[in-house]
C-alpha cells in the first residue's frame, strides 16, 4: 500500500512540475465558465434552474474532453517510461509491477479529479455568485455529475494503460489512443444513430439498445447524467431516449466502474508479463 502511495505522490509531483495539472485545470475551468455564461443565454437570466442547464452543457463537454485528457496522460505511462529507460531502474527497486501501475493510476486520477473538481466547481461557484437560485436537488445532480465525470476519466485512464502495457513504442500507443477516442466519443454514436434510422425499430429491441449503450463508457456516462434527474432530462431532450432505454442509474454506474476496473486488471496482467 505504501509503495502505491509513494509512486502516486511522484506522479502528482511530476504532473505539477510539468504543468499538466495547471493546464488541465485552466482548460476545464475556462471552458466550464464560458459554457455557463453563454449557455444561460437561451434560457435567459430568469431561468430558475440555471444549474441544470450547466449540468447538461458540462456533461456534453466532459464526454469530449475528459476521455481525451485521460488518454493523453495515460497512453505514455508504461511504454513511455520503458522507452526513456526510467522503468528499468524503477523495477529494480523493492516494488511490485502491479504497485507501480496502481500508484500511477492513483496519481493520474488525482490530477484529473483535482482539475475536474476545481474547473467545474469554479463554474458552479460563479453561477451561485451571480445570485442565481439553486435548489438542493440541482446541487446533488451537479455533484453526481462531477463524480461520474471522474469515473469516466478513470475508465479512459485504465484503457490508456492497457494500450501502454501492450504496445512496443510510444508512437503506436498515441495512435491507438486517438483511435479509441474517436471510436468511443464520435463514431460509435453516429454508427448507432445510423443503425437506428435504417432499422426503423424492426430488429433493434430495447434490450439490444441497452447493451449497445452500456458497451460504450461515454454513452453510459451520457445516459447517467442526462436522464438521471427529472429536471435535467427535461432540458437535455433525452427524455425520449430515457423511456426507450430502460437502464437504471446504478446499472450505468456499474458499467462505468467495470470500464475502469477491467482494463486496469488487464493492464496489470500485460505489464507483469512484459520483458524489458
Amino acid at each position, binding site marked *: 500500500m505504501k*509503495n502505491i502511495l*509513494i509512486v502516486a505522490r*511522484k506522479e502528482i*509531483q*511530476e504532473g505539477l*512540475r*510539468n504543468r499538466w495539472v495547471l493546464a488541465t485545470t485552466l482548460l476545464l475551468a475556462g471552458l466550464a465558465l464560458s459554457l455557463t455564461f453563454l449557455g444561460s443565454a437561451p434560457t435567459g437570466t430568469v431561468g430558475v434552474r440555471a444549474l441544470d442547464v450547466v449540468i447538461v452543457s458540462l456533461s456534453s463537454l466532459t464526454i469530449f474532453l475528459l476521455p481525451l485528457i485521460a488518454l493523453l496522460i495515460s497512453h505514455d505511462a508504461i511504454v513511455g517510461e520503458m522507452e*526513456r*529507460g*526510467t522503468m*528499468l*531502474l524503477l*523495477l*529494480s*527497486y*523493492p*516494488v*511490485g*509491477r502491479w504497485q507501480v501501475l496502481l500508484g500511477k493510476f492513483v496519481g493520474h486520477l488525482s490530477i484529473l479529479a483535482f482539475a475536474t473538481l476545481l474547473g467545474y466547481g469554479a463554474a458552479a461557484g460563479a453561477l451561485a455568485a451571480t445570485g442565481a437560485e439553486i435548489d438542493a436537488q440541482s446541487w446533488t445532480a451537479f455533484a453526481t455529475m462531477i463524480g461520474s465525470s471522474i469515473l469516466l476519466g478513470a475508465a479512459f485512464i485504465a484503457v490508456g494503460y492497457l494500450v501502454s502495457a501492450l504496445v512496443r513504442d510510444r508512437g503506436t500507443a498515441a495512435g491507438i489512443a486517438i483511435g479509441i477516442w474517436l471510436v468511443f466519443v464520435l463514431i460509435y454514436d453516429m454508427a448507432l444513430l445510423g443503425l437506428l434510422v435504417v432499422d426503423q425499430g424492426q430488429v433493434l429491441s430495447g434490450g439490444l439498445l441497452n447493451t449497445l449503450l452500456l458497451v460504450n463508457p461515454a454513452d453510459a456516462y451520457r445516459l447517467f447524467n442526462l436522464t438521471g434527474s427529472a429536471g435535467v432530462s427535461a432540458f437535455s431532450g433525452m427524455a425520449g431516449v430515457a423511456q426507450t432505454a430502460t437502464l437504471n442509474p446504478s446499472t450505468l454506474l456499474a458499467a462505468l466502474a467495470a470500464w475502469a476496473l477491467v482494463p486496469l486488471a488487464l493492464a496489470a496482467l500485460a505489464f*507483469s508479463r512484459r*520483458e*524489458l
Partner: protein
Amino acid sequence: MTGTVDIRDVVKRFGKVEAVRDVSFSLLEGETVALVGHNGAGKTTLMKLMLGLIRPTGGSIAVLGDDPAAGQFGGRRRLGYLPENVSFNAALTGSETLAFYARLKREPGQSVAPLLDRVGLTHAADRRVGTYSKGMRQRLGLAQALLGEPRVLLLDEPTTGLDPALRQSFYEIVEELRGRGATVLLSSHALTELEERAGRVVIMNRGVKVADGTLDELRRIARLPTRIRLKVTDAGLANVPNWLGPVEAWRRVNGHMVEIDASPERKIEVLRRATDEGAPVEDLDVIPPTLDELYAHFLLSQETAR
C-alpha cells in the same frame, strides 16, 4: 562466507537468439567480481535476469533469497543497481529524484543529502535532472545504487562518463562497501581499470561463460608467458644467448632493451640468470599477463574449440 547470488544452468532465449547459454555461478559476500565480455556477450542480460526484469527460459536464479523470476522483490531493498544508460525523469530535481528512490527502499530522508555530497552533486541538488550533463546523471545513478547499504551491487558499465577523479572515488566507495561484506558485480569494457579492483573475473562470450576465477587462477590456466624486460649494457647486448642461456623467444626493443616471453615454468630460471653475478643487466621489469591478454586468450581458445 555465504552466497548472495546463485545462478544455475540459466538459459535465456530472445526468439531464436540465445543470449545466455547454460551459465552457472554463485557470488559470495565480500567479493568484487568483474563480468567481462564483448557487447552482446550476455552481461546486461545476466543482470536483468538477476533483477527479474526478464525471466529465464531455463534454469534457476536466487538473489538474496528471492526468486526474481517469480516476482519476489523483498530482498531488493538491499540491492543496488546501476543500469548501463541510466535515465531519470527530467522534470524533478536531483534531490527529489533521490528522495523518491529512498522512500521506495524505506530509507530515511536524511540519507539523501550525504549521498549527494558523496558523489559530488550537492551544488546541483536543487536543479532539474533535465539540465544535468551525462556525467552528472551517472553520478546520480551511482548515488541511487548506494541507497540503503546494499548487500548486492550490480553495476553495468559504471564508470562510463565519469572523469578520472570521480572514477577513483567511485572505486573507493565500492571497495568500502565490499569491505563491509557486500557483493559487487561490475561489468565493464575498461579491463585495465578492473584489473586492480576485481578479486574474481567471469569472462563471457556469446552467452557462454568461458572462464571464471581469480586473476591468478586464470593466469595459471591460460599459461600465458610473463614478459621480462631487461636493460642490458652494450657489451651484453652482443652475446645475449651466452649469459641468458637457451631462451625460447627474445627480441631487442628500443636499442638497449631485451624482451623475453617466459613460460610460467621457465620464468624463475630466466630471472636467476638475469640477476646472476656476471650478467650485464642494469635493470629489469616483470610484466605478468594483463586482463586484456587473458581475455583475448580465453575468447580465442573458445572460438577455436567451437
